[in-house]
């Protein structure tokens, strides 16, 4: 059921679908509908209880939020488009996805025009129109409004409502990732929020009104949130009467409640890896391994003299026994990777050179580069010793064990890695953001809204420690990559973008600004009778298509 919608779809054809507007020709009902669906019920029936280890608390979808809040937003609200499990854009509130071909986006990428559905109403009965879209896009960049992300939105100018079903705007500069960003930009009702004295404090933020498949029901703080079916939904579904999010803070108890049947779906943070075998053995449960978008790696602070020599980075990579780390420490569940690009992204480069664990080769590289072993067994060159700290969150057991493992293999090639862990708040504060670490053990999601643009992580202008605006905490700087990223952000043609981001991955693989360990895998679990469930790691939500769920 978690298989691709169209099995046998090649990456290339998927890619052409993504941009060419062919997706718009597919029915909007394709939102995650399984290929062999049985007939869903005529009227919404039953309820689904989703257990979450964090509590959703932010209900205005434009305000700062975490992943679990997205579960609520995807159910109550709609965006102009959505991105499905194959990475294809499908219309949501829009009537079609704008592309170069259909003229929705001009050749220079600066003029956008979006046609909207005419059959959408808000949960309170008011009609949805282009004014709501205009209001939403303007609210995000309103300096008094506490907006979540503003990247992309800050380039939008001259928003014009042509008709209730058409809106146009101009971009300050061409920015291709904006299409992806809009799949996470949920449209809010103008007729309610424009009237609010302060949109940051509006009652709407506590009892939202959207256009989505589910309406606000009732919330018991610290316990449960109930959403109820919206019978007037313009898209497919909903087939269930109630969608309930239950907050179960303890991960062990989250799994226990799945075992005992108290919850129907294990939501974030899913089933812990050590319980995977036990989960698979449960009767009447469907347990799946789902690739996650985040990549675990040893992040190097490239401003440190130890890491500036590419030979050192290569040698360290040869000295990583990744398969042992994955099999012994991580129960064999994650997959080794050579790139930051998530495996299920259409832009994933699958033919990068594979890493090899080879200590002799590592020593050879260091010898050739002139790193000489000193009296204490540590190599050095020009007064720089191959000794550095590695940091991660205190108490992250698997990472701590990985550190000890890596420490030993590094020692065998004359490199001393000291473990220097700290509490999460310290670790991921200025220490991380302003690149005060030597090296870090970290899991990072590189893509924003599934767009392949990684400017924020790998562009020279994104080094916060050097006054840049972004999260390039490894301080990686390669003019070639900068140029490619700039070009990729301006390019709308999917084939051309494909070539660009493949090249970026090749250069990054050879530069090794960080040492990739593996891409994460999450263990999803649900009751076997729940149909229509489709994991979609192009979103941050496991309930993104709850409108299509039903009990068989």
């Amino acid at each position, binding site marked *: 059921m978690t298989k691709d919608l169209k099995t046998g779809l090649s990456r290339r054809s998927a890619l052409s679908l993504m941009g060419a507007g062919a997706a718009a020709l597919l029915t909007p009902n394709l939102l995650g509908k399984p290929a062999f669906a049985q007939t869903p019920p005529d009227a919404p029936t039953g309820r689904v209880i989703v257990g979450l280890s964090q509590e959703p608390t932010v209900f205005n979808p434009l305000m700062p939020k975490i992943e679990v809040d997205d579960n609520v937003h995807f159910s109550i609200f709609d965006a102009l488009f959505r991105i499905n499990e194959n990475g294809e854009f499908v219309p949501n509130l829009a009537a079609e996805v704008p592309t170069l071909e259909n003229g929705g986006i001009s050749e220079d990428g600066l003029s956008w025009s979006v046609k909207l559905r005419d059959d959408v109403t808000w949960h309170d009965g008011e009609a949805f129109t282009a004014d709501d879209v205009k209001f939403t896009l303007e609210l995000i960049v309103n300096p008094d409004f506490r907006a979540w992300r503003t990247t992309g939105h800050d380039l939008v100018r001259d928003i014009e409502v042509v008709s209730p079903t058409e809106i146009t705007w101009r971009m300050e500069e061409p920015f291709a990732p904006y299409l992806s960003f809009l799949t996470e930009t949920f449209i809010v009702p103008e007729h309610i929020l424009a009237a609010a004295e302060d949109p940051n404090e509006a009652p709407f933020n506590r009892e939202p009104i959207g256009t989505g498949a589910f309406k606000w029901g009732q919330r018991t703080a610290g316990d449960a949130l109930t959403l109820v079916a919206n019978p007037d939904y313009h898209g497919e579904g909903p087939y269930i009467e109630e969608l309930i999010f239950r907050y179960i803070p*303890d991960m062990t108890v989250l799994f226990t409640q799945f075992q005992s049947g108290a919850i129907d779906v294990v939501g974030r943070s899913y089933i812990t890896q050590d319980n995977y075998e036990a989960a698979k053995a449960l009767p009447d449960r469907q347990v799946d391994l789902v690739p996650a978008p985040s990549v675990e790696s040893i992040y190097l602070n490239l401003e440190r003299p130890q890491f500036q020599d590419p030979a050192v980075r290569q040698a360290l990579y040869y000295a990583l026994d990744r398969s042992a780390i994955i099999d012994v420490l991580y129960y064999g569940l994650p997959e080794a990777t050579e790139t930051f690009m998530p495996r299920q992204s259409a832009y994933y480069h699958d033919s990068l050179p594979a890493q090899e664990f080879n200590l002799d080769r590592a020593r050879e590289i260091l010898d050739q580069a002139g790193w000489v072993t000193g009296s204490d067994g540590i190599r050095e060159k020009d007064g720089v010793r191959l000794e550095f700290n590695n940091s991660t969150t205190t108490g992250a057991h698997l990472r701590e064990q990985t550190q000890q493992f890596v420490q030993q293999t590094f020692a065998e090639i004359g490199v001393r890695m000291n473990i220097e862990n700290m509490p999460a708040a310290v670790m991921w504060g200025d220490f991380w953001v302003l690149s005060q670490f030597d090296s870090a053990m970290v899991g990072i999601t590189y893509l924003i809204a599934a767009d392949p643009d990684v400017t924020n992580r790998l562009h020279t202008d994104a080094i916060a420690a050097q006054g840049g605006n972004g999260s390039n905490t490894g301080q990686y700087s390669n003019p070639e990559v900068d140029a490619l990223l700039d070009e990729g952000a301006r390019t709308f043609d999917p084939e051309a973008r494909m070539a660009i981001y493949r090249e970026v991955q090749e250069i990054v693989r050879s530069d090794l600004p960080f040492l990739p360990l593996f891409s994460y895998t999450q263990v999803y679990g649900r009751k076997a009778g729940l149909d229509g469930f489709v994991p979609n790691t192009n979103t941050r939500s496991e309930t993104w298509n709850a409108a299509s769920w039903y009990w068989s």
Partner: protein
Amino acid sequence: MAAFLLRRLLQSIVLLVIVSIIGFTVLNLIPGGPLAQYALDPGMTEADRLRIAAQMGLDRPLYVQYLEWASRMVQGDWGTSYRDGNPVTTVIARHVPATLLLMGSSTVIAVAVGTWIGIRGATHRNSASDYVATVGAMIALSIPTFWFGLIGIYVFSLRLGWLPSGNMYTIGDGSVLNVLHHLIMPSVVLALVHIAIWSRFMRSATLDAISQEFVKTARAKGVPERRVVMKHVVGNALLPMISLAGVQVPSLLTGALVTETVFSWPGMGRLFLDSLSYSDYPVVMGLLMFSAILTIVANFIADVAVALVDPRIRLA
């Protein structure tokens, strides 16, 4: 009496101010802050985080933030939760009932059982049952609550299927019976530790009372042993318990951190942990002031109660 009340009131206010200053300072000294949860958010730039911090007023000097918070607090405005946008008083009020139910029932169990074990231990000192109670109390005090909780869930929920594995009610069934069913395990687990505390206190207080002259006199007069214990011993032994209750009562409302987490109980302890981990300053400060006020009031009531019960103590 009026002078006593006035002095206690002034002391309390000074205490509250000190608590709030220390609390506010420590809270803000903890690295991270309300925006730390977005540190690894790929789409949020440092500029976004700085902008949001400024919009929330977090970029101002600490004393300015404190004075603003304090002046609002004095006017009865406890602030608004960063996490869910509700007034802090509403947030607290929503979590109190669950905690009151859990703590109330576990305290009833703990006081009843603990008092009985304590009295029995003292009157049957060094008997087999006294040893069992003593060792039992030591074990209950030294084993972490979450361990008891998880073992309980494993045995009674997963293996036997008798009790639910957490939460306060089954979705779709909010009946009293259903809530009571969910209440059994967390309240018993929580009571275990409190039984241990109460029984140890009660035992030593009873022993103190038993060795008093008036007990000897009563026995010499030929008063039946049962009556000696119930009237003379227990009556006097309960006196120090009033002070202990004064210390324990605030926890009725401030909740149990670990038990509420293990059993997904939507109470104040859980709220405190979550608010702390998300650096929801207004709620953490609200909870701090709430429990400080409760502690002050409960201790005051306990002092007055002891004075009323024990004619040897006078309030001055």
